[in-house]
């Protein structure tokens, strides 16, 4: 019997993996991809809850999340490209001028 709880649990696991991935990876693009993973996990949770409540609001929200994620990826990668052109490096650690 597959209940929404299963999906929630899966969403949690994927979310945590994505979170750890953001912290551990140095390549900016891979960091972005981990963020996308987190967003997808959240979407899964939304849809599971929507199913649980028999309401479609969760799906609408998941839909909006997808749209916003797409926009975010566009802008983020554009920024990344600009930085790469300037600094020739895609590592998030190299953008560390704001230190004490």
């Amino acid at each position, binding site marked *: 019997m597959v209940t929404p709880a299963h999906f929630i649990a899966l969403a949690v696991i994927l979310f945590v993996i994505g979170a750890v991935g953001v912290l551990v990876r140095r390549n900016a693009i891979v960091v972005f991809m981990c963020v*996308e993973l987190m967003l997808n996990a959240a979407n899964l949770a939304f849809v599971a809850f929507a199913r649980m409540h028999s309401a479609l609001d969760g799906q609408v929200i998941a839909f909006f999340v997808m749209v916003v994620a797409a926009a975010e990826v566009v802008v983020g990668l554009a920024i990344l490209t600009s930085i790469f052109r300037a600094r020739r490096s895609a590592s998030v650690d190299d953008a560390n001028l704001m230190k004490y």
Partner: protein
Amino acid sequence: MNHAILLAGPAAETARLVTYWVLAILSVAAALGMVLARKAVHCALLLAVVMLSLAVFYAMLGAPFLAFVQVIVYTGAVLMLFLFVLMIVGITAADSIIETIRGQRLWASVAGIAMLALLSLVIGHAAIGPAGPNSSKFGNSNVSALANLIFTRYLYPFEITGALLITAAVGAMVLTHRERTKPRPSQRQLAEQRIASGRPTPLPGPGTYAQHNAVDMPALLPDGSQSELSVSEVLSGPGPAAAGELPSGTVGQEAGEQQW
């Protein structure tokens, strides 16, 4: 559409169970692999696996529209965008496995495990009931129901999201735009530059061998050494000569830059 998803009966139940567990393990493994893989392209492909399994889950959960949107938009557009940028950026030293910040991996793992434990507790305590019946109060298909919601209750978010998309598109164009500061060189000027640069001929192509003919295989020079010029810089990472170079601003036209 509804019937295909909502098969009742024990057979459907077993099918769902099997589907869930297989895809769940697959997606978790892919996610882990994504986090741990060395090459960025591998990460992107593993993410595609995760997204596709999520699409199947959406379909299982009675959200067919979302499932298709996931495949088309997310996997098809967003992930491809990632791959394109990977192509531009190429291989850099960022893929090194050595951690530079002290204690980062340790504390990240600790925090991750703690987060996992806490959220599991949350789920354990939360009253996550069984799946309710598919909402058929709108009588018609999932798409119509979604459309009904979007255009009535969630109209404002919809419109604002539209504006957001436009802003994102314009922003991306602005950020990546490179202004031409000099008039576009004509064909004649290009030819003159080429002759004057000392290399009038095209760059050597990658090596083609019996068992490998990938784009990143270097060609061999007559004396047996590898030719650096035969592999695109994108694939091999910046060489020692390019490492110390600091080009001028982002919106400038660099002289030696490869022109697309």
